């Protein structure tokens, strides 16, 4: 049992260890996760502790990893599969969409697919191409497929445990830019967080800032700066992108009347659009200004030399908030 300040990555490792210990049906599989402990060390030490039967180094094949996961899950195991980077998740799509998401539905509950698929995602680590993708919307669009994104060590721990214990398939996307960016106290108490709930990180009254993943960092920094300008921001971490806890978002924007949504993924069809549409349907009469989105641009993620041109930063958020506060229609 550890109870000290740990990173998001440590929290993932802790949750995996906990799950492996508690439930003999939990099995990890993926490339380089055993001997090497994962390319980011997320599974460090787990094969040594739990053995090769439960922490498996697979051949190099993402379709295979996802397909194996589906098969294992239908037989009552709880596989936690790792895809090394979100950029390499596309071969796994077929099994996620055509099978994992609908196994329960098409067998009317006779079979289900309690698998977790973990993948690091997002940019900002100066990596070669394909290693910085943010395509969570493609997954969150699929009915039957839960998509969960932690933004802090404590939420990584609680949400990953919840994902593993959940009887539905969950894609667990880990924002790699903040894997080691901060440390907080996380108690290894085996307590899961709820999977279909947003988390209110700051209570405020003037404007609601909605985000997830690594952009939560920039959002909180913006909220701090705005507090100095007497703008009280409520900051909400969506955390589960499918199904979304719209109720929390609606209650907040109903109170504040203003909203800016922040995400790294491109603008067009990003999950910000879904949230914005729902807010316009449900709290139009409380809105004092249009719902704004601060997002990545609708271009391919640039190679790392120009990576910073693409990623939204604190200033972009500040500008959007100030414009929203000044909006008079």
């Amino acid at each position, binding site marked *: 049992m550890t109870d*000290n*300040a740990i*990173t998001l*990555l440590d929290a993932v490792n802790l949750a995996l260890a906990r799950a492996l210990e508690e439930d003999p049906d939990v099995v990890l599989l993926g490339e*380089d996760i055993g001997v090497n402990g994962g*390319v*980011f*060390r997320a599974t460090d030490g787990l094969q040594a502790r739990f053995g090769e039967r439960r922490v498996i180094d697979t051949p190099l094949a993402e379709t295979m990893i996802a397909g194996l996961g589906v098969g294992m899950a239908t037989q009552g195991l709880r596989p936690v599969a790792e895809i090394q980077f979100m950029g390499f998740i596309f071969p796994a799509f077929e099994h996620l969409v055509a099978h994992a998401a609908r196994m329960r539905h098409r067998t009317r509950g006779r079979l289900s697919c309690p698998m977790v698929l973990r993948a690091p995602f997002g940019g900002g*680590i*100066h*990596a*070669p191409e394909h*290693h910085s993708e943010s395509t969570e919307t493609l997954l969150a669009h699929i009915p039957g497929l839960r998509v969960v994104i932690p933004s*802090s*060590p*404590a*939420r990584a721990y609680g949400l990953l445990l919840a994902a593993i214990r959940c009887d539905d398939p969950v894609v667990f996307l880990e924002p*790699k*830019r903040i*894997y*080691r*960016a*901060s*440390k*907080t*106290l*996380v108690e290894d108490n085996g307590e899961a*967080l*709820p999977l279909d*709930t*947003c*988390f*209110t*990180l700051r*209570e405020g*009254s003037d404007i609601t800032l909605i985000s997830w993943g690594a952009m939560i960092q920039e959002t909180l920094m913006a909220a701090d700066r705005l507090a100095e300008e007497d703008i009280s921001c*409520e900051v909400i*971490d969506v955390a589960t992108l499918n199904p979304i*806890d719209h*109720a*929390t978002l609606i*209650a*907040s924007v*109903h*109170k504040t*009347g203003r909203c800016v949504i922040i995400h790294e993924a491109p603008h067009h069809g990003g999950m910000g659009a879904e949230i914005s549409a729902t807010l316009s349907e449900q709290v*139009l*009469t*409380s*809105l004092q200004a249009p719902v704004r989105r601060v997002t990545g641009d609708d271009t391919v993620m640039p190679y*790392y030399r120009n990576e910073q041109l693409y990623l939204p930063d604190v200033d972009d958020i500040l500008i959007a908030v100030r414009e929203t506060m000044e909006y008079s*229609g």
Partner: protein
Amino acid sequence: MKYFKLPDLGEGLPEAEIVEWHVQEGDQVEADQILVSVETAKAIVEVPSPQAGVIAHLFGAAGDTIHTGEPLVEFAGGEDADTGTVVGQLSQAQNTDSQRESFIIGAAPSSRQAGRASTTPAVRSLAQRLGVSLETLRGSGPGGRITAADVERAADMDQSFGAPEPLKGVRKQMAKAMAQSRAEVVPVTLCEDADIDHWPEGTDITMRLVQAVAAACAAVPVLNVWFDGQQLARRQHSRIDLGVAVDTEQGLFVPVLRDIGNRSRDDLRDGLNHLRADVKARSIPPAEMQGATITLSNFGTLAGRYASPVIVPPQVAIVGAGVIRRQPVAVGDDVRVHGVMPLSLTFDHRAATGGEAARFMQALIQSLSE
């Protein structure tokens, strides 16, 4: 670190031949101590130790070829320096901020109760164009929403009858307070007359009333309480703080005369004069209008006989005094013309009984009859 690998020797080629080891397995070495001499195509290079430590293993012997990146030396007990990634760079936490995270699961408490006058952006913009103030409107839409029809109706009314004047200040307060009273209080009014014919010329009528209220509160303290309609509890006051209704152009003010049971008549008169002056000068602080335990409304200077004055919660009683008039009264079996003051007592029947009210009235009359 565990493995020290041969660093790039800057020659553009990764090869070097081990010429001579300067340390042995088991040796304790210092940082920068020369471990080995190697020969490249160009020269003999001395390779220093990157750290202090104990040599566990030497890789290769004199004459062997070794390459950049190959392990040269193994240190005992070291942890290998690990980038912790296979591409890019991950930024490391600068501070071990031993904070426990605090976040709310779901919506913040303030979001759960929020309410706001609602209307759509289109209606908002219509109101602006027609010059209608949304604050003055009551919505007829679902949930009290203001509709375009509401706005247009208001615009018509404004045209025909002029724009409404939104209430401000004490008038607005009064409207709210009276409505709230109506919603909560169960008022019963008891009326009686006090024969004050025997009062000498120049009697300070208001002071007689004030002291009568004090006497009545002493006799029937149960009307000098605060009543909580939610909790169904009452708070008995030993002190009597009397709200005195003062009528002005701006509206109704009710400053509070404190502790009337323990002050002399002159002191009370002084106090009331000061309050009146402050009200007139509009310099009365809000604190002076809070905390009344019972109220007196003397409309006798104007017009009116009996009334059912309004109780402002959490008080439970209000005394009203009307115009003193000379009227026929029975004195024994004879008819005389005496000065008579009509009195009204409204009490909150949630907190007090008719009997208590009647006894209070009795005590009032008693005091005024002296």
